[in-house]
């Protein structure tokens, strides 16, 4: 299956992001693009989905028939739970995150730096809805994958040498997945590992401010 990044960039990203999940992991899916990921997971994948509001073992959306007034995810969507789920209070929910039990988190981004710094919570004077759970997820997930469109609507780069916005956390990003590229954050800088079938190197480099190290085994996705 291949998804056209131009017509459906979000699903293109989610499909690729799904491949980062390993069986048995405890994961958190941020708001937005990450919520599309489950669609691309194998049916039998054993997995624990954490939701910040005290759910360990979240399942799919409920749909209208099964919506339970007491069961939403952190984004507000009515969901279900899987067998073996547990409910907990908000302090235990984040103890799991900060205590090092969250294997993998997916978050969106406004800016990412070549050092793996992330800015996604505030544009001073313009956008300041609060902090939420993102800062803790970014700083403490054992692995953090950013799912984001490669550039802004005005084709400005989001992947920068240095973030200009206030940080969510520094040096926290492990991988960036966009509709155009899969980029690994390494000690030496950003390594371009994959580019999408529907783009070319020049386009990706042109939409990226930070220097990219082109991987020896660059592949298409």
């Amino acid at each position, binding site marked *: 299956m291949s998804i056209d990044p131009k017509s459906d960039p979000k699903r293109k990203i989610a499909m690729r992001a799904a491949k980062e999940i390993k069986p048995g992991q405890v994961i958190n899916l941020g708001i937005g693009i990450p919520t599309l990921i489950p669609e691309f997971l194998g049916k039998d994948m054993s997995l624990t989905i954490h939701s910040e509001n005290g759910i360990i073992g979240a399942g799919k959306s409920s749909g209208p028939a099964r919506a339970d007034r*007491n069961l939403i995810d952190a984004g507000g*969507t*009515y969901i279900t739970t899987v067998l073996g789920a547990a*409910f907990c209070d*908000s*302090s235990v929910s984040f*103890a799991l995150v900060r205590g090092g039990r969250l294997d993998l988190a997916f978050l969106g981004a406004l800016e990412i730096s070549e050092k793996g710094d992330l800015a996604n919570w505030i544009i001073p004077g313009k956008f300041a809805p609060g902090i939420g*759970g993102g*800062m803790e997820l970014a700083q403490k997930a054992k692995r953090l994958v950013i799912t984001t469109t490669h550039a802004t609507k005005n084709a400005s780069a989001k992947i920068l040498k240095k973030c200009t916005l206030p940080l969510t*956390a520094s040096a926290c990003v492990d991988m960036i997945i966009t509709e155009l590229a899969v980029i690994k954050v390494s000690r030496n800088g950003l390594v371009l590992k994959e580019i999408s079938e529907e783009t070319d190197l020049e386009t990706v480099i042109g939409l990226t401010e930070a220097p990219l190290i082109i991987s020896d085994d660059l592949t298409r996705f």
Partner: protein
Amino acid sequence: MIDKVTSLDRALKKVKNGQIVMTGGFGVPGTPFCLIKGVLDKGVCDLTLIKNEANEAGLGISLLIEAGRVKKLITSHLGLNARVIEMMNESLIDVEFFPQGILAEKIRAGGAGLLGIITDIGIDTILCRDRQAAHVHGRQGLIEPSLRSDIALIHASRADRAGNLIYEKSARNFNPLMAMAGDLVIAEAETIVETGQIPPDEVHTPGAFVDHVVLIETLMPEYGVLKHHVH
């Protein structure tokens, strides 16, 4: 036998202007709508509210904020309430944000009688500007003072007359933490059972932390499913 069940009016008797009020809930689940309506009807003002979010416009604590009764909101995220964000931007309300789990820990620390916690969350961000530093385990941390309140408003699924509480599913969230951190703890419950009917191993909040229990006479529509969140 201890009996903490009382009427809404008597439970809210000590709620006064200028108080700090904690309110459980993460979205609709766990928000004590009956108690919030009681506070609204009482007409108290100059409140400082502590809640994960501000519900959505026209719902829950947003009603108190929109009515101008709240001078300050201590919270985590207002993404689903554009009206309160607007009031914040127009300086009609003072808003203080904390990372969600740190807000939970600050409240829990208040409930546990601690002065504060030390965390590295936010260490490389603008949060460290107005926070005291502390050096622990050879690492730099930030001091987060504990939070307590005059009043804690709690929503429980089930209570017994002794005040033992059980929460349901994702309605637990901040409720058990706030139920320890209020000087006066008022819980509303969907069902009240006789003392002894809740198995001691299944209690989420022991009754000793709770001052008053109020029965929710009828489950108002705001407790129901929000259609725009059904996907």
